[in-house]
């Protein structure tokens, strides 16, 4: 390829920097969003995996007991019996003074040996102090950098058991050389001696689990020797559900980022085509002086490569910056729902970077293929004229429509079959979206023709509408981009709005008490914390309550793996308030069955994840060992994405219920009773107790739950804004291109007497027409996408069902936003057209 050819072609960059800038911006944003989401996902995932691995260490199995732990004497007995490859653990969340939640791992440093990974590796020097000095703790290495604390500082930690002062030990300061090697990796666990952890977490004399590392033969023997109430469980079973759910959450985010990519692709295609069209005379001249077709094809692709490479490199930089913002949100969501995750840094993986670079450059090249092909075929300026391109675009409409119908049908089939899990569901959704988008040019052309017919006699509006129709190759991709972005916004509104409503409604149903007494602990720790069971009667008396309910959550083994079991002693007529989805018989009979027979209720996500239906049986370990329970019903619950099994207290405990305490008390006050008075009395009584507990109202719990909910979806809103930004640039670029192409027409109109204000009005009118069309088209697409997100994707990912709510207010806002974005995007082209010099524009080639 000759140097002159390249010069002749690329010199346009200096003449029209804005056009090149738009293409660059499209590539930059597309690459940045995809990379940022990937980096945030990966970094949060690594932190999540690290946390899980640190907690489990190299153990193959764990010995678990009932909630609230089991007596530490069991561990002593095992060691005495010769089981050396065992390590006791007390664990749970606590809160730092700055409000951040941490995860405390209480270990026996002497027994740890081969168990724990690098994060909690115990150097020789600190071990001695951990064991000999109660209240000492090793923060993660990465924590020190920003904490502003020093070795041996005192710190107050708040946990389920209360507030405790601890002494911070810095491994490096204690002469642990290994500490400097790992340089902040795996920074989430706070390691302490088991005795300190027992005090800190309120588990005196008890253990949460015993880690075991043994081969299969030895495991069998150990299982046989375990006393009643203890069970040997493979490590993988414990965190599998969390891992799967965290993955589902990440797939959701990735899908959003791919949507932004799809929208950016429209923009890149649009600007690339325009860049070639603008230089059709250069192309024709180059052909006349002997440039071959291959050379022309090559020079257009070379330009695309340059744009792709520059845009991608800038996009990578922006993406890494954006990831820093996103990762905190992703990690917070994982902490809220799955496990305490602390992310200290975003580390770009070489493979991910390479993939994103290939994506950015590849997208640029792909988008340039069609215009490069056109360029190679040019014989004279007229052969590459806009009219010719437009005629071809119009001829291609039918083909596009056929392809659209095929894609729609394929998408429908994929979703209908429901096989292939979450990824397949997303593939189905994307097929439907692409099909819909491919239909848009045909619909847009028809709508514009219809509008033009309506406007007979109104010459100027007719010019505006007809010129949009005649520039379909330009107006359709831009409109599609805006439609997609608005539809994404609507679908998120539908999904989040429906979800939020359902959660609020569920909270209203689930919180049937007037006052709750719960352990003082960070939200993430609350389910594991316990209050003395005998408080029930006293609380009822003090608050003059009509009835008292109790509820305790615990992880327990079952034939479908570790499950979350919610053991309750409910209020009378509790089933009337429970949002039952599927159950046999009237509630009275169900209540009797749950009280008198081995029967349980399961939540909707549990039924979905474990493929459990009413009438199925589950083998669940209860206080006195494993028993088979019949699933008597499925109810709606958003409390846990993993799903929960609900069992009445009398079915769980063989003897007196709640020896290890209960998770919470719910007090129902008589009609007309003053809750404030009851709360005041309860608080006074609780202040005198040793165990830290607090009184909350249903409203407080609702508020906290909704705050977590809103945090979860904050990232979705952020991605929505980015998507809209891309669409805005797309419509701006398209209008800019459209007006520049039509400069000659505008100059003619001006020479005939159209005022500059008239030109501005015409351009803005065109923007409004495109924006209005995109907004109207986005409504059915957005509602459809929202419905699929609710009925297919969310069910597939989390097992949550929800009532569809059509957020007409938000839909209206989105429509206005679309039109507003298009109007705003048309402001600069309108201004430029109104101010352009007429004579040069009149001299342009038609």
């Amino acid at each position, binding site marked *: 390829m000759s140097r002159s050819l390249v010069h002749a072609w690329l010199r346009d960059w200096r003449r029209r920097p804005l056009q090149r800038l738009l293409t660059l911006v499209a590539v930059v944003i597309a690459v940045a969003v995809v990379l940022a989401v990937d980096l945030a996902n990966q970094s949060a995932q690594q932190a999540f995996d690290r946390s899980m691995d640190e907690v489990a260490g190299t153990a193959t199995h764990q010995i678990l007991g009932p909630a609230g732990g089991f007596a530490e004497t069991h561990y002593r007995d095992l060691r005495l019996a010769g089981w050396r490859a065992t390590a006791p653990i007390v664990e749970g969340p606590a809160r730092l003074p700055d409000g951040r939640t941490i995860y405390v791992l209480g270990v026996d440093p002497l027994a740890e040996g081969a168990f724990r990974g690098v994060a909690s590796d115990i150097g020789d020097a600190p071990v001695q102090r951990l064991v000999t000095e109660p209240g000492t703790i090793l923060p993660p290495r990465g924590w020190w950098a920003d904490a502003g604390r020093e070795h041996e500082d005192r710190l107050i930690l708040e946990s389920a058991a209360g507030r405790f002062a601890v002494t911070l030990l810095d491994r490096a300061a204690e002469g642990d050389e290994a500490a400097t090697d790992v340089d902040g990796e795996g920074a989430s666990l706070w390691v302490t001696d088991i005795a300190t952890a027992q005090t800190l977490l309120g588990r005196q004399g008890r253990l949460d689990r015993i880690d075991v590392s043994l081969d299969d033969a030895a495991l069998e023997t150990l299982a046989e020797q375990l006393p009643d109430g203890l069970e040997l469980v493979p490590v993988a079973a414990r965190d599998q559900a969390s891992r799967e759910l965290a993955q589902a959450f990440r797939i959701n985010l990735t899908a959003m980022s791919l949507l932004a990519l799809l929208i950016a692709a429209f923009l890149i295609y649009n600007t690339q085509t325009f860049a070639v069209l603008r230089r059709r005379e250069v192309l024709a001249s180059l052909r006349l002086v002997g440039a071959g077709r291959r050379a022309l094809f090559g020079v257009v692709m070379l330009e695309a490569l340059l744009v792709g490479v520059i845009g991608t490199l800038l996009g990578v930089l922006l993406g890494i910056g954006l990831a820093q913002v996103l990762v905190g949100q992703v990690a917070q969501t994982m902490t809220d729902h799955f496990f305490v995750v602390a992310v200290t840094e975003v580390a770009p993986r070489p493979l991910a970077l390479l993939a994103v670079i290939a994506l950015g450059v590849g997208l640029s090249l792909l988008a340039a293929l069609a215009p490069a092909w056109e360029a190679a075929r040019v014989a004279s300026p007229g052969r590459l004229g806009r009219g010719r391109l437009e005629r071809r675009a119009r001829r291609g409409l039918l083909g596009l429509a056929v392809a659209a119908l095929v894609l729609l049908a394929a998408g429908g089939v994929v979703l209908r079959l429901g096989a292939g899990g979450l990824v397949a569901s997303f593939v189905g959704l994307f097929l439907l979206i692409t099909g819909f988008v491919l239909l848009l040019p045909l619909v847009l052309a028809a709508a514009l023709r219809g509008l033009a017919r309506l406007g007979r006699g109104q*010459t100027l509006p007719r010019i505006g509408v007809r010129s949009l129709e005649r520039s379909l190759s330009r107006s359709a991709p831009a409109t599609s981009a805006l439609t997609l972005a608005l539809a994404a916004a609507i679908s998120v509104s539908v999904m989040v709005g429906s979800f939020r409503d359902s959660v609020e409604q569920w909270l209203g149903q689930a919180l049937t008490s007037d006052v709750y007494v719960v352990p003082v602990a960070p939200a993430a720790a609350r389910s594991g914390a316990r209050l003395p069971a005998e408080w029930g009667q006293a609380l009822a008396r003090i608050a003059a309550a009509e009835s008292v309910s109790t509820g305790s959550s615990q992880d327990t083994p079952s034939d479908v793996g570790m499950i979350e079991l919610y053991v309750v002693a409910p209020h009378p007529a509790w089933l009337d308030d429970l949002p039952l989805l599927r159950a046999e018989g009237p509630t009275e009979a169900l209540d009797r069955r749950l009280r008198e027979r081995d029967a349980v209720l399961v939540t909707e996500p549990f039924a979905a994840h474990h493929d459990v239906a009413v009438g199925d049986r589950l083998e669940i370990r209860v206080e006195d060992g494993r028993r088979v329970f019949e699933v008597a019903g499925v109810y709606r619950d958003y409390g846990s994405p993993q799903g929960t099994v609900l069992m009445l207290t009398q079915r769980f405990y063989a003897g007196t219920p709640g020896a290890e305490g209960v998770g919470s008390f719910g007090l129902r006050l008589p009609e007309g009773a003053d809750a404030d008075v009851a709360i005041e009395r309860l608080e006074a009584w609780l202040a005198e107790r040793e165990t830290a507990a607090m009184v909350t109202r249903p409203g407080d719990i609702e508020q906290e739950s909704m705050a977590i909910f809103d945090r979860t979806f904050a990232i979705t809103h952020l991605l929505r804004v980015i998507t809209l930004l891309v669409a805005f640039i797309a419509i701006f670029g398209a209008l800019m291109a459209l007006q520049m192409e039509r400069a000659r027409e505008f100059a*003619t109109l001006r*020479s005939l*007497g*159209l005022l500059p204000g008239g030109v501005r009005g015409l351009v803005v009118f065109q923007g409004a027409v495109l924006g209005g069309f995109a907004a109207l088209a986005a409504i059915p697409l957005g509602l459809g996408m929202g419905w699929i997100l609710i009925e297919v994707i969310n069910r597939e990912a989390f097992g949550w069902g929800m009532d569809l709510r059509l957020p007409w207010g938000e839909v209206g806002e989105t429509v206005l936003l679309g039109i507003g974005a298009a109007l705003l995007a048309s402001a600069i082209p309108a201004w430029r057209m109104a101010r352009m010099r*007429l004579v040069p524009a009149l001299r342009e080639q038609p």
Partner: protein
Amino acid sequence: MVQRGSGVVLSLAGLGFGYPGEGRVLQGVDLDLAAGERVAIVGESGSGKSTLLHLAAGLEPADAGTVRLAGQALAGLDEAARTRLRRVQVGIVFQSFHLIPTLTALENVMLPLELATDLGAAQRRERARAQLAAVGLGAKEGREPEQLSGGEQQRVAIARALVHRPALILADEPTGNLDSRTGEAVFALLLEQVRATGCALLLVTHSDALAARLDRVLRMQDGQLQDLAARASAR
């Protein structure tokens, strides 16, 4: 509007213009065009003929001298006022037609009426139809420009320039994009229509033969106008 047959429609005095870095295109050009008068400007390519028309129409501001259109000096008017004056007083015929490709022939002709008059839609349509019929394209009013031949397109452009009865027609090489036979026919039509409406005509052309058929022929040379011959106004 200037009364036919009396007064000066266009007056250029000491007109000068130049593009940055390219020297003077026009300098010290003086010209008075009486109502109903038909004047041709001939000259080499790049001699400034078209620029003179653009300045006369107020499409480009002169950087020296004055342009008075229908008695009003353009220099004192802002862009909008210049446009308002132009759309009432001037009709322009371009070499490459400059029809609006998204409008039919009839709609193209209706456009100046919509911009320059208060006529209702029905009246506009009626008058545009009559004008289109006058240039022999009554049967093709529904065609879009790309469905018309070059000669037909220029006839639509002539109809569009005349339909609102301007005082002055500015024609920039109106036959430059047509073959000689079609060009001759279009030129004859233009003269006939100008005569019929009584407006003045300032025409730029390469063709001395065509120019010779007008009342007066001026030659543009080195940015200045030379009066070659004055002819009787009624040929």
